[in-house]
Structures are given as structure tokens and as C-alpha cells.
């Protein structure tokens, strides 16, 4: 036998030994441990100083808000046991639960709440700062178990903004000294939540153990391990291999495969990393001369086939958006609006009327359009972040059939924010606008003129209408639900009439978990009620 044959035999043997030796030994993990896949390393675990989605997702289990939101988004008691709304909605008085302790044993008091709002949330938490900041006069702690929010004017949506994902309460005794952004406690956090921090290995995993003294009852799980797995497909493979038990979000192409897997269960939810009740929305840049003509915007709305977006872009999940406010905010959603339906003939008439005519070429040209030289081809740009360019592909095909040429301009997210919201250098753009739990949180910013600002996902269209501004001001201050419902209906009718946006798809998020676990809730503390077996 030749030397090389021997050599091959050696290589063969070594590979066999390697594969046999590596064969996955029976999982020695404690079955009451839940392993969660996380897409990004949060870097730090203080959700009160950032709106970063991965910090929020990772840290929510450690903390509590004054209130919690149940599966149907109704406020329920958390750190606050009960509350009263006084002064017609301009003052909220919260009575805190007594005997709650921080994970380090120190007693939780009203001073922690005041400190968290004054020093962290209202300074560093961009969302709370922007939404509460302008209307809030002060947060007071008259005694250890009472907190009072004083507003300059009645403020309706406060309770929706006090749960752990919007306003987590952090311990004053650990944050009062030094710079909160660089406080070492941020990577060894102390909260009041159902799980306690145990360890953090950067870019690898974060471990929590059950808080046996949790004021709402000890969780059934003994530990939660958050694994940092940046690649979506690898997350799915890890779930299939049993290395991970929970995925916050399943990529579209993998959904069917997981749904067919008996060892995996899937849940559809309106909650996603970016927020809840999100609508994929096409925005017109109203500073562009062609986009100022209402007929042209309506024509594009007619040329868009929304069910096709649901089918081809969202893999059949979610629903075609039929109103500016998501159906997930049931009290405010208007279901009886006359939104332009798919009708290419109507679109063609409107474009002809707007001066965009089809002569010899496939693409329309301008004739007498204000601000546009005659003979200009109807070519518009479409900017989007990489994950959203699938919308552009389909839009391009749909608008082509009515003689509009769409030029796709994919941009990385940091550049997208700059180009669209700071430089306002775009014709049309796609954004996922998460409406949140109240129109004040995620809808207002798209329509009021004061939020035409270099802020990501503010008023993208640059839409200004004083009637709209006044309607939103009244709706935010109205304390009566029927009154608010009526005002939001008016807002939506006006938005459909002015058509600064085309609302495409109400997207849903698919979560998946190992069949050895059950009992997850749709709240931020999703794992507090879960159990896992063998």
C-alpha cells in the first residue's frame, strides 16, 4: 500500500473520530432554564437611558414600571397599586406597593420613581423625553409611597407610557452618583423585576436567575439565558437544534418551515422589536413639486395593490392597512374610511388630469405641471433601509403599469435617517411606523407640523395642516374615550383626504418557541409566567 493511501486513511479516521466525539451529548442544561435568542448585544442593560430596542428587550425582565400593560394593552397595577386621575387629567396620583425590594435588598420608595424620571427618563430616554417632557410640569414624591405627576394641561395617554418598556424604574441609590451613561451598574443591573441579573459575557450571553421574592409571585423558570445570535437564519437553526427555546422574531421565509415543525410553536403578535402595531408606510416628500398635487398622490394610492403587498412581502401575514391608525389600537382605528382602492383606470385618469401624460414612451411625461419643466419623465426615487427594499421592488412593478418609473435607492439605516429626515433629500420613502399603544405615542408624530424635524421617523412627508395640528391637540387632551374616538376618526378622515402617505401593510411579528415550554404572555415580562420541561 502506498504512503498516500495510508495518509488518506489517517485523514478519514481523524474526521470520523472528530464527528463521533462531537456528536451532541444529551443536554445537561437545567430544564427549567429558558434560552432566548437575541439579535444584538445590548452593550448595557439600563433601559431608562436609551430607546435602543435590544436593550429594552433584554432588560425588561429585570425591571418594572409603575403600571403593566396586559395582553390587550390595558393598564394593570405593577409598582403602583392603584392611582387616581385628578384635575380633569392634569394630575395623576399613584399609590405605590409597599414592601417591594430591589434585587440588592434595599427598599423601593417613591424617591426612586422621582429620581428615575427627573434624572434619567426625562433626560436620556429620547421617547419619554419627547412625549412627556413638553407637557409634564413636575414629578413629586410627597411621601415614600406616593408619586404625583403634575401636567401643564390635561394629558390622556399617561398610563400607556408607564409600563416597563416605556418607563422602567431604576434604583436611585445606585445611580445618584456619577454619569449615568457610564455607570458600571449598567452592566450589572439591579431592578425589582421577576428575574435578577447573574452574569454578562459580552457578545456571547447574558444570564438571569429567578427573583424568588418577586412581588407578583416567583416565576416558574429558574433561569433565563439570553444568547446573542446576530444572524436570523442561525437563530432559526438554533431553535430547530434545541439550543435555543425562544425567538423574538422569525424571518419571513422560515415561518412556514417552523409552523410545520412539531417541536416548535409559533405566535403571531403585533409587538415587534421596533414597537407595537406597526404599519409599513409609503411617504411622499411634499416639498417636491410633483408630490404637491393631491391628484398625483391619489393616483399612486390607486395604483398600489395592497393585498399583493401582504401576500408577497409579508408572506401572507398581517393585513392590508385600511386606515391611518392601526387596527391594533381598537378604540381609535376607523374601519369605515373610503381609502383609495386598487384601480389602475382611476389612477390613469388622475395622472392625465394632473398633467402627466403618456405620449410615445412607456413612462409618462409632464405637460403643464407646476414647478416641473414640460417633457420631464415621471421618474421618482424610492429610499428605504435594506430590509424594506422588497416593498420597493413590488411598488416599482405596480407603478410601472400606470406609467411611473420608480428608481430604487437602498440606504443603510444610519444614512437613511440622515437623507430622509435631516436632508429631506428623497421623493418617496418607506418607513415602518409603529403606532404603539396609543395614537399619541406613535401616530401624532407623522402628522403634526411641529414634528417636521431632523428626527428619525417623525413627520416624513413634511405634511402641515393647521386643522390637523388642532385636532391632535384636542385628542391628546380629551379625557373621555368617546370624545377621543370621535377626534381620531376626524383625524383619519382628514389624513385620507390629504393623502400625505399611503398606508400599505399592518405588519405582524412571528415569535417561536420550543414545544417543551409553555405559558408565555404577550407582555414585556413574557417569560415571568412561562414553564419549561424536558
Amino acid at each position, binding site marked *: 500500500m502506498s504512503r498516500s493511501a495510508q495518509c488518506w486513511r489517517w485523514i478519514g479516521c481523524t474526521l470520523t473520530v472528530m464527528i463521533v466525539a462531537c*456528536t451532541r451529548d444529551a443536554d445537561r442544561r437545567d430544564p427549567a432554564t429558558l434560552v432566548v435568542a437575541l439579535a444584538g448585544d445590548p452593550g448595557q442593560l439600563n433601559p431608562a437611558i436609551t430607546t435602543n430596542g435590544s436593550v429594552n428587550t433584554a432588560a425588561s425582565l429585570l425591571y418594572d414600571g409603575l403600571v403593566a400593560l396586559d395582553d390587550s394593552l390595558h393598564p394593570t397595577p405593577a409598582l403602583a397599586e392603584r392611582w387616581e386621575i385628578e384635575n380633569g387629567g392634569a394630575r395623576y396620583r399613584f399609590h405605590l406597593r409597599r414592601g417591594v425590594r430591589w434585587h440588592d435588598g434595599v427598599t423601593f420608595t417613591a424617591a426612586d420613581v422621582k429620581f428615575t424620571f427627573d434624572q434619567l427618563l426625562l433626560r436620556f430616554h*429620547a421617547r419619554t423625553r419627547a412625549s412627556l417632557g413638553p407637557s409634564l410640569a413636575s414629578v413629586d414624591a410627597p411621601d415614600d409611597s406616593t408619586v404625583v405627576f403634575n401636567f401643564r394641561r390635561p394629558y390622556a395617554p399617561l398610563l400607556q407610557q408607564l409600563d416597563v418598556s416605556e418607563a422602567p424604574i431604576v434604583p436611585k441609590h445606585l445611580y445618584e452618583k456619577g454619569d449615568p451613561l457610564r455607570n458600571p451598574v449598567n452592566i450589572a443591573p439591579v431592578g425589582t423585576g421577576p428575574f435578577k441579573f447573574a452574569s454578562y*459575557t459580552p*457578545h456571547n*450571553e447574558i444570564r438571569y436567575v429567578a427573583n424568588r421574592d418577586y412581588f407578583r409571585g416567583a416565576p416558574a423558570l429558574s433561569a433565563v439565558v439570553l444568547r*446573542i445570535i*446576530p444572524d436570523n437564519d442561525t437563530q432559526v437553526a438554533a431553535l430547530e437544534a434545541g*439550543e435555543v427555546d425562544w425567538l423574538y422574531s422569525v424571518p419571513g421565509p422560515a415561518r412556514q418551515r417552523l409552523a410545520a415543525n412539531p417541536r416548535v410553536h409559533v405566535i403571531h403578535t403585533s409587538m415587534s422589536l421596533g414597537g407595537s402595531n406597526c404599519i409599513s408606510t409609503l411617504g411622499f416628500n411634499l416639498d417636491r413639486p410633483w408630490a404637491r398635487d393631491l391628484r398625483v398622490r391619489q393616483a399612486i394610492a390607486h395604483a398600489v395593490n395592497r393585498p399583493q403587498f401582504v401576500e408577497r412581502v409579508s408572506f401572507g401575514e398581517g393585513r392590508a392597512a385600511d386606515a391611518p391608525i392601526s387596527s391594533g389600537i381598537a378604540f381609535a382605528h376607523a374601519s369605515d374610511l373610503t381609502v383609495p382602492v386598487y384601480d389602475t383606470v382611476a389612477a390613469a385618469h388622475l395622472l392625465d388630469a394632473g398633467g402627466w401624460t403618456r405620449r410615445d414612451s412607456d413612462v409618462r411625461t409632464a405637460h403643464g405641471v407646476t414647478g416641473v419643466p414640460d417633457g420631464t419623465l415621471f421618474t421618482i426615487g424610492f429610499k428605504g433601509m435594506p430590509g424594506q427594499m422588497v416593498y420597493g421592488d413590488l411598488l416599482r412593478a405596480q407603478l410601472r403599469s400606470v406609467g411611473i418609473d420608480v428608481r430604487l435607492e437602498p440606504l443603510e439605516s444610519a444614512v437613511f435617517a440622515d437623507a430622509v429626515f435631516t436632508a429631506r433629500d428623497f421623493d418617496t420613502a418607506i418607513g415602518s411606523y409603529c403606532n404603539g399603544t396609543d395614537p399619541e405615542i406613535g401616530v401624532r408624530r407623522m402628522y403634526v407640523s411641529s414634528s417636521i424635524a431632523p*428626527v*428619525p421617523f417623525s413627520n416624513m412627508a413634511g405634511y402641515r395642516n393647521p386643522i390637523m395640528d388642532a385636532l391632535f391637540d384636542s385628542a391628546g387632551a380629551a379625557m373621555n374615550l368617546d370624545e377621543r374616538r370621535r377626534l381620531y376618526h376626524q383625524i383619519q378622515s382628514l389624513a385620507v383626504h390629504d393623502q400625505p402617505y399611503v398606508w400599505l401593510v399592518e405588519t405582524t411579528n412571528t415569535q417561536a418557541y420550543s414545544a417543551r415550554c409553555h405559558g408565555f404572555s404577550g407582555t414585556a415580562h413574557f417569560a415571568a409566567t412561562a414553564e419549561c420541561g424536558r
Partner: protein
Amino acid sequence: MRQVNSRFVAGRLLQVVPTVAAILLTGFVLVHLAPGDPVLVLAGEHGDAAYYAFMRHRFGLDESLPRQLIVWLGHILRGDFGFSYVYGRATSVVILERVPATMLLTGSALVISLLVAIPLGAIAATRPHGARDIGISALALGLYSTPAFWIGQLAIIGLALGLGSFPVQGMTSAGSDATGWSHSWDIVRHLMLPALVLASQEIAVLVRVTRSTLLDELSREHVRAARAKGLTALQALVRHALPRALLPVVTIVGARIGHLIAGAAVVEIIFGWPGMGRLLLGALQSRDTPILLGLFFVVSFTVVLASLLADLAYAAIDPRIRLR
């Protein structure tokens, strides 16, 4: 290492300083010229102008670019790479935490690729255009033209999910408290698949280089003389042809360290390996300038150092070469 002159080493080390400085300066300018604002990314949706101004001031981003450059250079000279915008911790700490994982991955991939590629190249060269040569060359060409992210996905689906022989992701088992040998074994199990995938790209290059230089050597007089004095073909190859054929391989390995680190970034993301490559991607997306520049420094320094080491190794292997 008698041939290596200490003055040569000192001279080359001095060259490292301007090279790295130039790379850092270019990096600083590029990062700041690129569109995208770290404060916008940090605030995400819903910020307001006052918040942006407040954060810009905190990070010193409200200063002019030349002023930022001077401040930054001053800090670098004192060995201070600043604080990460995202992590809120010292850049040097954040980066150094990741270095061991990347070194382990790239080091193993390098060793594996040498151990596999040199014998394969030698086998291919012994009988050019024979069946084995064609097989090996086709394999090398196939690996060379296949992107790592695809091989990685295939490896996960085939070897990890299909065979169940390897873990899918990570560097250790989730929630593992293993210590000592079982801990090391746990890391080795997790390391194998990413290291093999990363090595596959290097194997492709090294097989081809080894084969072609060895073919050159085998036709030379000194190899024929070796055969004539009674050595077997294998002995002649190992003792006389291979050492000389390895010289270009050493140069190639030194020059490919940059490639290896770039490839590691892709492999780290696919396999959830906690190294620098993932840090780089995250820092790029969030415009975390201090981390980006810190990584530029570490990577450029490593690449420059690797080419210096390759030169020294060259001299050590080949007695004809004297470095002055």
C-alpha cells in the same frame, strides 16, 4: 535566527509607526465624512432637537472636525481610545474583551488551513494532471469561488442540524457552568465548524500556491540529484523540494492575515462567535466612532505586524536571505 539583524527589526518596527498613523488618520477622516449621525442612531425614533444637542455636546460632537481630530489624537497618544457611544465603557476594554475569541478563531483556521493545504498541494503536485490532482484542484477552485457566508449556512444545515455533530452557534453551551477540561472541550466543539469554514477559504488559496511552486521545484536539478543518490520520491519531496516551495507560502500567509480577519467577521456573524468582527459590524451600523477607530488600530497593527513576522520567518527558513 542568526541571519536576523536586530537593526533590521528595529527599522521595520519604526516603519510600523507611520503606517499605522496613516491608516488611523485615513480612518478618522473616512468615518467622519461618511453620512450618518451617531446621535440620531442612538436616539432612534422620537428624539427632539434639544436631546440631540445635549448628546452631541456630551460626546464632543459639537466641536469642529479639526478640533475633534486634535482632541482625539491627544487621547490616542496617551493610549486612550475614548468611550464607546453605545456601550458607555472604555473602547479599549470593549475591544480587548473580543480579541481572544477572534484570535482563537483565526489562529485555528490558519493552523487547520496549513495542515490541510500543504499535504493536499503536495499530493496534487506529485502527479500533475492525474486523477488526484484534478480532484484536489477542482476542490480548491470550488472553495475559492464560494462565498464564506454560503459555506457557513450549508455547514450549519448539513453538519450541525443534519448530522447533529456540531453545535449551531456560540462559543460555549448556553448557560454552561463547566470549568477546566470540560470547558475547554465545550469551546473546541463550538470552534470546529466556524474554524473549518474560515479555513476553507485559506485552504483554497494555499493548495493552489503549494501545488504550483512544488511543481516548479520538483523539476529542478537538485531534486533529480536527490533521487539519483537513492532517495525515494517522497523523501526527495519532503526533504528537498518542499522546504523551498514553502517560501512563497509563508509570504502568502503573511499577506492574507487581513483577509483572514475580514473573513472572520462574516463567520463570526453566521456562527454567533463573540469576536471583533461582529463588534465592527455593530459599530459601523451605529456609527460608534471610538469603537470603529479602535478596531482600525488593532486590525491595521496586526496586519502590519504579520507582514513583518512573515519577513522574519522567510529569513529563518531560507539561509540565502539576509535581512539588513
